[in-house]
């Protein structure tokens, strides 16, 4: 046991002195919070502009439909003269949407025939979608309003042409939009854990082989598997530090940024939530160290290890990206998949949803079991002489 500690102590000291590599690892811990903070600032400002500002609508041929223009202006639309070539202006991205009123509009309108209006827009431009929808809805509202007046004049109740009425019951709160961001959090947390451990593991396994110090090391009178375990455990503190830093980073982001003002919702990462997330992530720390130790032990150079390990960290983080778009219920099967279960649990903690203790335990036990299994495989590999011959 004392000699296992000797290995951990040496690897820690050795890697602490290699400040370049652990600073690189640490970079991934702050990367998530910084990226998320940037996204919140960016989207927050856009949302605020939408809510507060009025829409500017370039109109061509405004003189043909003075009543329509008055109606639009009453609905907080700022009407301005359209550019000479509306289509070119939309394609160039100068304006989001242009209303074109043809000269024959007044004539058709007076004759009681459908009067044609043109909306020029690019439906693939995400930033224009809100403007397009608002303008279209207003125009349809105007059409309905005039139609109803015409029927009334003819002594017909407008209700006759209203076959159905749709009532929108939208359960999305302003909060759900912000929660899309929160769903990315588990992804960043897991990525930070993996990348905290990676530099240490690469140096202790592939690096040991590369600098030709593995062979003399293994001649020391210890069961060979201990070296695998020692190297794995040496990476744990580095992964833990990354986990703590990244959690602190997220807490700081939500503390420092005026999230409520930007997104219209309050997100609080209380100390309790942070502690819960930290505890749920502990088995992942072991898994990250174990799986990376096993894989890096097979590689011959640090360069080779450096090309594989980032993918290893990406794989368990992928469900986190999916979670941002596809909500998954915290069913039992999800808890059976190591790292996936934890990501769902982290999401639940963030949303202050009720959490089943059994889910927490099942996901932790399975992740730990997998870690032990992988560690065992690493021990077996170290006991095999292939670790020396490299074949």
């Amino acid at each position, binding site marked *: 046991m*004392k*000699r296992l500690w*000797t*290995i951990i102590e*040496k690897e820690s*000291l*050795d890697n602490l*002195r*290699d400040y370049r590599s652990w600073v690189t690892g640490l970079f991934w811990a702050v990367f998530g919070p910084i990226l998320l903070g940037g996204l919140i600032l960016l989207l927050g400002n856009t949302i605020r502009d939408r809510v507060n500002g009025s829409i500017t609508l370039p109109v061509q041929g405004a003189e043909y439909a003075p009543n329509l223009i008055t109606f639009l202006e009453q609905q907080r639309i700022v009407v301005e003269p359209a550019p000479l070539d509306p289509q070119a202006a939309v394609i160039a991205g100068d304006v989001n949407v242009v209303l074109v009123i043809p000269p024959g509009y007044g004539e058709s309108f007076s004759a009681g025939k459908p009067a044609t209006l043109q909306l020029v827009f690019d439906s693939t431009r995400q930033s224009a979608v809100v403007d397009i929808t608002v303008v279209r809805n207003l125009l349809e509202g105007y059409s309905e309003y005039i139609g109803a007046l015409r029927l009334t004049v003819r002594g017909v109740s407008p209700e006759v042409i209203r076959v159905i009425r749709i009532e929108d019951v939208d359960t999305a709160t302003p909060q759900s939009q912000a929660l899309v961001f929160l769903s990315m959090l588990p992804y960043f947390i897991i990525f930070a854990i993996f990348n905290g451990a990676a530099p240490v593991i690469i140096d202790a396994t592939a690096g*040991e082989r590369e*600098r*030709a*110090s*593995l*062979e*003399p*090391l*293994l*001649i*020391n*009178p*210890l*069961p060979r598997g201990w070296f695998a375990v020692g190297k794995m455990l040496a990476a744990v503190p580095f992964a833990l530090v990354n986990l703590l830093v990244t959690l602190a980073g997220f807490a700081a982001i939500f503390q420092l940024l005026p999230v409520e003002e930007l997104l219209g919702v309050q997100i609080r990462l209380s100390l309790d939530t942070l502690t819960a997330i930290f505890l749920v992530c502990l088995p992942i720390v072991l898994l990250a160290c174990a799986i990376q130790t096993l894989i890096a032990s097979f590689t011959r150079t640090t360069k080779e290890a450096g090309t594989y390990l980032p993918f290893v960290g990406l794989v368990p983080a992928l469900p986190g990206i999916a979670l941002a778009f596809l909500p998954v219920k915290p069913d039992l099967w999800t808890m059976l998949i190591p790292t996936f279960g934890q990501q769902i649990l982290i999401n639940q903690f963030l949303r202050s949803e009720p959490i089943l203790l059994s889910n927490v335990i099942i996901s932790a036990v399975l992740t730990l079991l997998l870690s032990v299994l992988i560690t065992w495989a690493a021990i077996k590999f170290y006991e095999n*002489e292939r670790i*020396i*011959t490299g*074949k």
Partner: protein
Amino acid sequence: MIEVENLSKSFGKVRAVQHVSFTAPDGQITGLLGPNGAGKSTTLRMLYTLLRPQDGTARVDGFDIREAPLEVQRRIGVLADARGLYQRLTTRENIRYYGRLHGLGGEALERQIDRLIDMLDMRAIANRLTEGFSTGERLKVAIARALVHDPRNVLLDEPTNGLDVMSTRAMRQFILRLKDEGRCVLFTSHIMQEVAALCDQIVIIAGGQITAIGTPADLRRLTGKDNLEDAFVAAIGTEEGLER
């Protein structure tokens, strides 16, 4: 004492070592001599328990390398073919790490490290990071960490490889000193002159097999050649490995 019995090892179709047997007694220097690729390093790697023999075995101070590898490891000090150091650790830290892995510690370990640093004339580099050390300096650190637990049996794989003339002389003095301390010294070399100058017993190995074994005088008599150089050529069948 190291007793080797019928040791054999193949890598795929390549028979690296075949039926090698010899005994390296305490207080003597045994040289394993042969051209590159003769099977010297593979033999040594089996002796220091890193490779498992396919057939045969060996005993170090009576402990079988297959059955009691940890006991063997405690009794051997090894300068392996791979002698990489930890570049971000100092000389002293490199040696201390191996000492601790042998279960040593505290004052006793520090005194032993001091002794080795004095013996190998490393005081100037004792507290420097080993990054940028010369070949000779790296070799000294590698030897010191191999001997930190004061082993009775010392195995050296090509100990003078890459050294300049002065360092080679110092290395040879050091090997003689290990012998005078009563240790069993087994070293490999592909340089005939080196083996001739140092060894009490020479084991000539070629193509994975022992072709001749004995004292320098025995070898001369055995091959019917007057000088050892000719005896060596006769034993391995080529002139490869002669230093000119």
